[in-house]
């Protein structure tokens, strides 16, 4: 798919020769309570500066806004009516009947047939369709299998760690900003005056100034065998950290369980190694369409079509050579 890595095992593709399992997050938004402990723990551990001046954004309980250079975990709050919940349930059911890939072990049935979990015949009366719900979801860097930011970084500041995560070396990055335009999820950002507005009388120096910055999967903790700050602090285990294959299996089991309870709105995001980024290291269980959470519905790593883009550039260059040559040949003295 992409030029540098295959759909599985990004750490091996990057040339690491030891057998660390790929690490990742499974964020189960169905049990997130929106406490934002992950945001706080992340900011504290990584010493990320404040974004803005504590203004109220008017978007439910979310006053963080979005992921960025200084916000590596962001809890989204969405308020929904009964009608909307039913629509989400319907769109989730459609995913099942589309024969979306059964990535995990199929319990029965052949590939292409309707999955065993086809719910059209079972009791679809949801146990409780509340009149109102809050969706709460803790968003984070996806640590893509085919990471756009990593592919386009011209300095080599962004690298694939031995755990399969994507990490920026802030002492190498020169802040060119190319990675920002290559992230299909809008995660990585350059930390500078344009994006942060520190308190007027900030005394301490802001670290990582002028360089690209994003979640490192707490690389500094992982090399010591610890787990990232956000998952360690999550009080409901909505954020789980672990070996990527185990987490994916767990996520699939969780979706099956929820579907059996009639919650067909549950779906996975990022668990498909055939998607536009080769699957993500951070897998999410969502309860509505991804765009509701501010996630792109069909992200594609730009590098995927880079060969064609280069071909276009090559043809254009050849055309320019031809134009210049003809100009000189066609010009009388």
């Amino acid at each position, binding site marked *: 798919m992409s030029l540098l890595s295959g759909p599985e095992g990004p750490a091996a593709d990057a040339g690491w020769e030891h057998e660390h399992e790929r690490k990742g997050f499974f964020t189960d938004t169905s049990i997130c309570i929106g406490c934002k402990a992950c945001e706080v723990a992340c900011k504290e551990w990584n010493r990320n500066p404040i974004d803005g001046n504590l203004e109220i954004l008017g978007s439910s309980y979310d006053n963080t806004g979005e992921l960025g250079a200084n916000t590596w975990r962001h809890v989204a709050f969405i308020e929904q009516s009964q009608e909307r919940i039913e629509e989400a349930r319907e769109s989730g059911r459609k995913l099942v009947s589309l024969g979306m890939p059964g990535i995990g072990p199929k319990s029965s049935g052949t590939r292409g047939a309707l999955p065993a979990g086809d719910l059209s015949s079972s009791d679809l009366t949801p146990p409780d369709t509340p009149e109102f719900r809050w969706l709460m979801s803790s968003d984070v860097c996806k640590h893509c299998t085919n990471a*756009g930011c990593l592919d386009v970084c011209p300095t080599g500041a962004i690298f694939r760690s031995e755990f399969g995560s994507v990490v920026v070396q802030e002492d190498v990055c020169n802040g060119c900003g190319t990675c920002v335009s290559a992230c299909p999820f809008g995660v990585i950002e350059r930390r500078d005056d344009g994006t942060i507005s520190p308190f007027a009388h900030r005394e301490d120096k802001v670290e990582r100034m002028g360089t690209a910055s994003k979640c490192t999967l707490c690389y500094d903790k992982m090399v010591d065998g610890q787990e990232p700050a956000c998952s360690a602090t999550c009080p409901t285990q909505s954020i789980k950290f672990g070996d990527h294959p185990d987490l994916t299996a767990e996520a699939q089991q969780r979706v099956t369980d929820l579907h059996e309870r009639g919650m067909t709105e549950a779906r996975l995001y990022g668990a498909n190694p055939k*998607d536009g980024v080769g699957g993500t290291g951070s897998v999410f269980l969502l309860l509505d369409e991804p765009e509701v959470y501010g996630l792109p519905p069909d992200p594609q790593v730009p590098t995927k079509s880079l060969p064609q883009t280069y071909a276009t550039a090559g043809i254009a260059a050849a055309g320019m050579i031809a134009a210049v040559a003809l100009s000189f040949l066609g*010009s009388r003295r």
Partner: protein
Amino acid sequence: MSITDFDADRPPQPPRRRRRGGGRRRRSLNEVGMGDGSREGAVVEDVEFTRSDEFDSYYGRPVVKAPPWKGPIAIYLFLGGVAAGSGMLAFGAQCTDRPVLRRNARLTALGTVGLGTLALIEDLGRPERFLNMMRTVKVTSPMSLGTWIVGGFASFSGVLGALEVDRMTGQRLPLGVLRPLLGAAEVPAALAQVALAPVLASYTGALLGNSVVPTWEAGRGHLSYLFVSSASLAAGGAAMVTSPVAETGPARLLATAGVVGDVVSMNRMKESMHPLEAEPLETGRPGTMLKWAERLAIAGGIGTVLGGRNRWIAAASGAALLTSSALTRFGVLHAGLESVKDPRRVIEPQKARLAARRASGITDDSISTSG
């Protein structure tokens, strides 16, 4: 519902208003109840969810981010194009014995690529680390390849520029033993310059196209054509400004070809886009810039064809073409930066392409899965 006997005297209740869309409106105190203080009314409004039926996003916030690129990058795109085209004109002039055009084009190439490189460095978050670009060569990064192309082109332009300055000043540059070396380097340096020039003009299309910025992403199959055309007309224009008409025949032809390519490729690019992705190229400040870029390109082109043999008309046309090219680069850069602001420009085209793949039977490559 009646609670007291006096309820019968109440005037009829006005029907409850339902508001669709838009933000919530605060009631002023006067509006509570009947407005005249005669009785109590509902203070808390009915809960209503604001959502448009056809489109969801997270509070209208952007899905992807624009790179932190500002004016200097547009200036670089413009100057890099002028440098590339001038490098090619200089080589042609060298081959066809047009000494003034050769000298002026070489000096233009050196000046523009030098300033362009400074603009690139200026736009870095950590300009003092610009040499980190030279740590690696990465084929997956148009920025990395571009750095080597610019670096190489600038070096060879430096050699050729020094040579021309030395000639102009009657060999007064303090070169010493380096002078014969410089003379011997002329042909190889000119060959290297002309080899790198076309890729210098076209790689920037891949640089912008290889992104998720909606307008650039949608234009990735066309941006390089637009940029080489813009570079051709700008370099032709620069030669028409700097050099006498007797030697700028090829520059005029190149500029004319550039104008045609510029107008055609811009329109084809817009046609190939989802309407939401093309919109930033047609509206707002970027839209205005691109409109003027087109007008100036056509005006400059007509001036070149009809009056290119008159020194003054040629110079004016050249200036119009240079301005057009600069406006094109600014317009395309800012249209991209503008396009990320509305999440619809990301979500709608993505949903459309996902739906198209599903309709054609490809159902296994969605990022959302049922398990």
